[in-house]
């Protein structure tokens, strides 16, 4: 097996599995901080809510740590050439993630879990806040690293070809990174909102834990609705124009646009056929793609055929991942928007069982949308590992064979199957136990 293909398969599998858990921690942490703070102010129900979500968070956190360790070391094991060349830049945000964010998050989670009766209520609330800050900082350093690979800035090339850090702040605070970060975080918060609302809906539909279930539904629906908007505008929109400006081939693949067009239409659905260079059975909105990408309905948008095929990312994967993300985002907006209206219209939402069912069943889909979004970002970056600077195929470890990687990939698959079963079992058991006072 080709080594770079095997390495990419292993990275894709391990990162997509790993990312399921940061979605949970980054998405739930603000809720925990909020409930813990209300609890510290004397709201007993909020304190129970905080304790319940902290348990779910802790399971996510443990699974995130266990699956995160291979991520950090995979740069060295499988992508040694990439690490040796660019480690002067990407090593730093990754090390900061380990040091600042990870210490903060794990230590204060310890206080949150074990320190409730040992520290003052407000100190407990601040611990929850710091756990939240830690998990969001963690996300920031990872996204900053990825954003540099998408749009490298603030670097210098040394005499021996190694890429060195020239300006740390330019790397960390590049506008590309900040818009990508806000998009990623609102998407995680959207998932958090749908998780909290979904579990609340589950309790209401099961006729148990009614008061706290309503509270979950209310908090989750409000956050979910706000984030369904923010994820599109401004964050998604700004991401899109960054891609149009810096990665036009990726944009063409995302939209399934093969021929350069003035007043390019937006394909709502359709099936790209990269071999024949056509989009089959499309439904178009005229001029919309030109407008979204460049703010001008008549602007020219370069199609894939404007570039050599060796510069194309895998078109079908990029296209479908993008359309899955956008399609699901639209559905999230519809569900949470409708739920929000019924919530504020005399609390009809709590009695509207069909909509509660929808909220419950929607729970897994923000995970799919988050993973699809990352698929667009990373698969769409191909054939580059660092956009315009280094090819993915040149980044693989020269001393590791495809067979070895395939073997370890199978090993990871086995290990993660066990871990996934364990995670589901523990999480479902906590949900079954519920936030009731009896389980304090």
């Amino acid at each position, binding site marked *: 097996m080709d080594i770079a293909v095997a390495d990419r398969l292993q990275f894709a599998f391990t990162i997509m599995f790993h990312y399921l858990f940061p979605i949970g921690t980054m998405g739930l942490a603000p809720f925990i901080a909020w409930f813990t703070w209300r609890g510290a102010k004397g709201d007993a129900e909020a304190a129970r809510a905080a304790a319940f979500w902290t348990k779910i968070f802790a399971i996510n956190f*443990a699974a995130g*740590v*266990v*699956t*995160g*360790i*291979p991520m*950090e*070391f995979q*740069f*060295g*094991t*499988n*992508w*040694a*050439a*990439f*690490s*040796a060349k*660019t*480690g*002067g830049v990407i*090593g*730093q945000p*990754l*090390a*900061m*993630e*380990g*040091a*600042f964010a*990870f*210490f*903060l998050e*794990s*230590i*204060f989670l*310890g*206080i949150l879990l*074990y*320190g409730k009766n*040992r520290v003052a209520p407000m*100190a407990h609330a601040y611990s929850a806040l710091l756990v939240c800050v830690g998990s969001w900082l963690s996300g920031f350093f990872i996204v900053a690293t990825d954003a540099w690979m998408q749009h490298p800035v603030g670097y210098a090339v040394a005499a021996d070809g*190694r890429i060195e*850090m020239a300006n*740390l702040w330019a790397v960390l605070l590049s506008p590309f990174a900040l818009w990508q970060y806000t998009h990623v975080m609102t998407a995680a918060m959207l998932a958090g909102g749908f998780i909290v609302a979904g579990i609340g809906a589950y309790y209401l539909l099961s006729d148990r834990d009614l008061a706290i279930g309503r509270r979950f539904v209310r908090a989750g629906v409000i956050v979910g609705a706000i984030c369904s908007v923010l994820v599109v505008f401004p964050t998604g929109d700004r991401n899109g124009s960054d891609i149009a400006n810096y990665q036009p081939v990726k944009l063409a693949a995302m939209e399934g646009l093969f021929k350069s067009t003035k007043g390019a239409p937006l394909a709502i659905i359709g099936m790209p056929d990269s071999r024949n260079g056509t989009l089959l059975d499309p439904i178009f909105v005229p001029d919309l793609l030109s407008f979204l990408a460049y703010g001008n309905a008549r602007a020219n948008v370069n199609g894939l055929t404007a570039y050599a095929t060796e510069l194309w990312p895998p078109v079908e994967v990029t296209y479908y991942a993008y359309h899955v993300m956008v399609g699901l985002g639209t559905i999230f907006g519809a569900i949470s928007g409708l739920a929000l209206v019924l919530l504020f219209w005399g609390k009809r939402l709590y009695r509207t069982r069909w909509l509660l069912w929808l909220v419950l069943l929607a729970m897994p889909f923000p995970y799919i949308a988050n993973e699809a979004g990352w698929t667009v970002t990373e698969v769409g970056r191909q054939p580059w590992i660092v956009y315009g600077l280094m090819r993915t195929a040149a980044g693989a*470890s*020269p*001393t*590791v064979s495809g067979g*070895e990687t395939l*073997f*370890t990939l199978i*090993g990871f698959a086995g*290990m993660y199957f*066990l*871990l996934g079963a*364990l995670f589901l*079992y*523990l999480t479902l058991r906590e949900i079954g136990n519920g936030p009731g006072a009896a389980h304090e």
Partner: protein
Amino acid sequence: MNSAAFVILAFMLGIYVLLDGFDLGIASIAPLIGRTGPERESAMRAIGPFWNGNEVWLIAGGGALFALFPKAYASAFSGFYLPFVIVLWLLMFRGIAMELRGHFATRIWRDFWDFAFTASSALLVLLFGVALGNLIRGVPLDANGYFTGSFGFLLNPYALLVGLTAVAALALHGATFAAMRIDGAPGDRATALIPKLAAIALLGFLATSAATAAIRWHDLPATWTFALPIVALIALGLAARFALARRTREAFVASTAFLAALFAAAAATLYPMLLPGYAGATGIGIFDAAPSTTALLSAIAAVVVGVVVVGIYGTVVLLPQFREKVTVNLNP
């Protein structure tokens, strides 16, 4: 500058060895100090609040290696590909065993997880020791700094000797921690085990020192570093003496000093190389690629933040727990 980076890296990994050392060590000897299920469970509860935080130092150390010495990071991890991935699997499996054990109430599951916990921990220590042994012995590298040997090359007698010594040293460390933390029969057994483990560690230490001197005679470290093995020997003796006097807290401190001196001696032997070449091959040293100022400063900041935050955690959460010993729960 480069030496400062080396010291920081050694400090972070050293902290990892001292901290995760006791929980890996306790796991390795759990069947010796706990005869029954509840007794072995007390060993797990003794390290329950610590192990995750301890492993964070490994992650932080790995990140620091990446940021400070990318070339060594890339070469070492891709060169030791299979053993390294096995280490990752063992780390994961150990975490799973630890977290799962309490969730299944039946005897057969408990026995299974106990075995998985002990076996994966002991194997991890052995592999860490083998890796350290290979670092000291040197590895074959090509002109670009990539490993050219095989898996079999890494399993040489010298590296295995270092691995076994590491198992003995950390078992001793774990025993002192168990003696200090656990009440009742398991704690007593751990205390009785300390002098025996100290004797085994002494044998391993002497054999490893002799073998290291034979391998590295052409490239001896600075003279003052020879004080480190002497400190180690004194600390080892003290650990055994304190255990015989049943002063378990002092025994733990002595064992910590023993490990710290051992680790410092290994780091001093390695300096200024990170990945020495074997049999004349050029290795990768700390002067091959100067770490940038920002990398060094962020690593220093990370260590300071880490120590401060861990200090807060230690005083607020762990110290109160420390005052009470773990007891064997007879009515689970």
